[in-house]
């Protein structure tokens, strides 16, 4: 690995898009910068003191000011539009993507696949497939960064954030933590393994780990905390059957889309948004349920619903 590289590998669809923009930028800004520097340089030589070319020239010209301001304004607006287009796509995961749950923690990445397979600091994904990462953190802010995919996003404690990519190249690529998180920040690194679909499926099924899916484990969490004692009787709490992906009416007249974030909040802060028709009597599970079990429980509740959640507004507006 000691060879010198000057440009990062392109291993995702984004990589190509971002690099295109980058090179366009480099050319435009490079030209503009070089040209300005060149003019300064030429003026320094041509009008140097000994040259005796001094001439009175005007010292203001509104026309000239407008003439050089407008192009700058137009160019930066164009660059803005291009950049914004890529960005909105970057943070809007598609609906039918393979999902992976990632929890940052000083100083490791804990990764869990929907079928229950877990790994640490390694992420196996299939090539040419949309993969969505659900990020959160157990302690401080981290940031999940894969340079070869040209994307990153912060993992913030207390909430989920999502990112996605479509890897175009098999191989292994760096994962970095990009947000400073303490002593071993620079050791919070890992590897993405991009594999052909077949190999990936084999990998997913292999291993000595118990192959309970996340949803199955979630069912155990559900039983452990006796969620059913309220949520199946239908008196104290609403049924969780098919709840995921629905619009629910809240006490107070607003509606809410039942998605991961709403479920998460309802477990940790039950009284924040209470479903219409129910008393806010659910105790909080904050501090009692760890991130992993929470993810599994949510996966279980999701599995009770056949409808995929509307993702239209996921990741932004």
């Amino acid at each position, binding site marked *: 690995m000691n060879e010198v590289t*000057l440009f990062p590998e392109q291993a995702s669809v984004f990589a190509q898009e971002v690099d295109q923009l980058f090179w366009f930028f480099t050319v435009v800004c490079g030209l503009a910068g070089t040209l300005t520097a060149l003019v300064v340089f030429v003026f320094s030589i041509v009008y140097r003191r000994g040259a005796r070319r001094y001439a009175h020239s005007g010292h*203001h010209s509104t026309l000239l000011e407008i003439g050089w301001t407008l192009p700058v304004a137009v160019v930066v607006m164009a660059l803005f539009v291009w950049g914004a287009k890529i960005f909105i796509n970057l943070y809007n995961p598609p609906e039918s993507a393979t999902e992976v749950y990632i929890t940052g923690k000083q100083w490791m990445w804990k990764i869990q696949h929907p079928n229950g397979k877990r790994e640490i600091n390694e992420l196996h994904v299939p090539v040419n497939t949309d993969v969505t990462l659900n990020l959160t953190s157990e302690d401080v802010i981290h940031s999940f960064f894969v340079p070869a995919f040209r994307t990153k996003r912060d993992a913030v404690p207390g909430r989920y954030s999502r990112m996605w990519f479509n890897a175009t190249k098999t191989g292994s690529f760096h994962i970095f933590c990009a947000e400073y998180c303490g002593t071993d920040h620079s050791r919070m690194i890992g590897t993405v393994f991009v594999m052909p679909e077949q190999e990936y499926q084999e990998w997913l099924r292999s291993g000595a780990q118990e192959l309970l899916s996340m949803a199955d484990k979630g069912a155990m969490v559900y039983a452990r905390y006796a969620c059913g004692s309220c949520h199946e009787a239908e008196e104290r709490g609403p049924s969780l059957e098919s709840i995921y992906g629905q619009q629910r009416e809240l006490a107070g007249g607003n509606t809410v889309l039942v998605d991961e974030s709403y479920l998460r909040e309802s477990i940790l802060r039950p009284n924040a948004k209470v479903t219409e028709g129910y008393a806010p009597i659910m105790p909080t599970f904050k501090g009692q349920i760890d991130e992993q079990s929470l993810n599994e429980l949510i996966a279980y509740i999701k599995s009770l619903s056949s409808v995929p959640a509307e993702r239209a507004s996921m990741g932004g507006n």
Partner: protein
Amino acid sequence: MSSDGTLNYLNVTHGLKSWLLTLDHKRIGILYLIGVSMFFAVGGLFALLLRVELLTPEPWFIESDTYNKFFTLHGVVMTFFFLIPSIPAIFGNFLVPIMIGAKDMAFPKLNLFSWYVYMVGGFLGVGAIALGGVDTGWTFYTPYSSGYASSQVILAASAAFVAGFSSILTGLNFIVTIHKMRAPGMTWFRMPLFVWGHYATALIMILGTPVIAVTLLLLMLERGLGIGIFDPKLGGDPILFQHLFWFYSHPAVYIMLLPGMGVISEIISCFSRKPIFGYNFIAFSSLAIAILGFLVWGHHMFTSGQSVYTGVVFSLLTMAVAVPSAIKVFNWTATMFKGSVSFSAPMLYALGFIALFLVGGLTGVFLATLGLDIHVHDTYFVVAHFHFVMVGATVSAYLGALHFWWPKMTGRMYPQTPARVSALLTLFGFVLAFLPQFVLGYLGMPRRYHTYPDEFQLLHVFSTAGASVLGVGFLIPAIYLVWSLFFGKLAPANPWFAKGLEWDIQSPPTTFNFEETPIVKEEPYAYDGPLPDNSEEVLKAGENYGV
């Protein structure tokens, strides 16, 4: 003209007490010069240690905790104790009253008080270093700083908090002075652009600094009392901390830059022997940058979990800052057109400023662009960008100002040759140190990394080599400037044949600057063509000033 026999602000009274209790804005400027130079040395030392450690991919002489503390202290010291006070507190203090024909700042006691506040902040910072340092990064992001870091967070935050009040009081003094103390005939549009730059800066100091003060206060309360303002475990929002933090800390970049741009306007015009081109546009672009600066802070948070919609809005507004910045550069260039350009040390620093600001500014547009920023956010690309702006440009302007007004401030000339050499050396060293970091950043090297993958090593070695050259480039001026204090030729009132009220009075000035309150009848920058051939003979001292 000054000679040993003449009274001036330096020799009018003697003794430590006459300095520590002085109400003279010029002496206070010198006090700041001493304090700021000390902190620059401390911050620079930390930087050099960081660069040395980064020579190898694996740790070789400091541990990760030490490394984290060093980059934090480098950031805290350089931001709060060097860059923010550098040009305003030293040169602004010294020159703003003189440039507008006033005898002093509006509030001399407050001015001295703010120096003491700055030093108290500085000692709190030194205390934080002495008691084990702090490892949160200068950004103090929660919840790491409030709940997880095991270092002197409260002490370091209070250092920045206290230094902030010094900044506020200095800004307040500038605005009142500029509004109320102008000499007869010194209309708003006859003020030197240096003064305009400081007016815009003072606005940011007064309106931005209190917000970071209260943010750091909340952080200290959370850490000290456990009240959990930003703590996600209590339902707090760590992103809110970032909003409040960058509401000040982005405009703070313009606190560093705008006075520097004022300096460059003065120098370019003087050494081109021409009136500045587009005076009004440069003046208003300073105000535009100051006000727009308050609307763009979210571009530090594109990946943070701020909403996508907000990211788009902030990106758009950030792009707008490119316009007034470009206006300034183009106008400086146009000033040189058909001029009579000479290359004294201050002019070399000014040209260096333009070159480095071009790179820093244009890469800033890269970072404002959403799609690109996601990849390079929190990488060395960002590190390189803001060093180009804050070290490349601002420190060039700082050194340019030091070389331009040194004769006025001290009454002594420094030797031109080493000054020119060091100007070129810092430019070369700087580019070598930070250009490779753009490549590193695009490769994906995250910032604040103590160790890194092998393939990044070569670029890091280049960077460290450049940093060493830069260090030497900063050391040389320290040597010959101190030398000049004792052995330099006596400076005439106007060694550069420059325009402006400060050049009409003796070097160094008397305590109250003007024997008679001047009446201004001339437009600013009334340069009227190349210097006469005998200009150097006029300078009796016989030194080649490079004019």
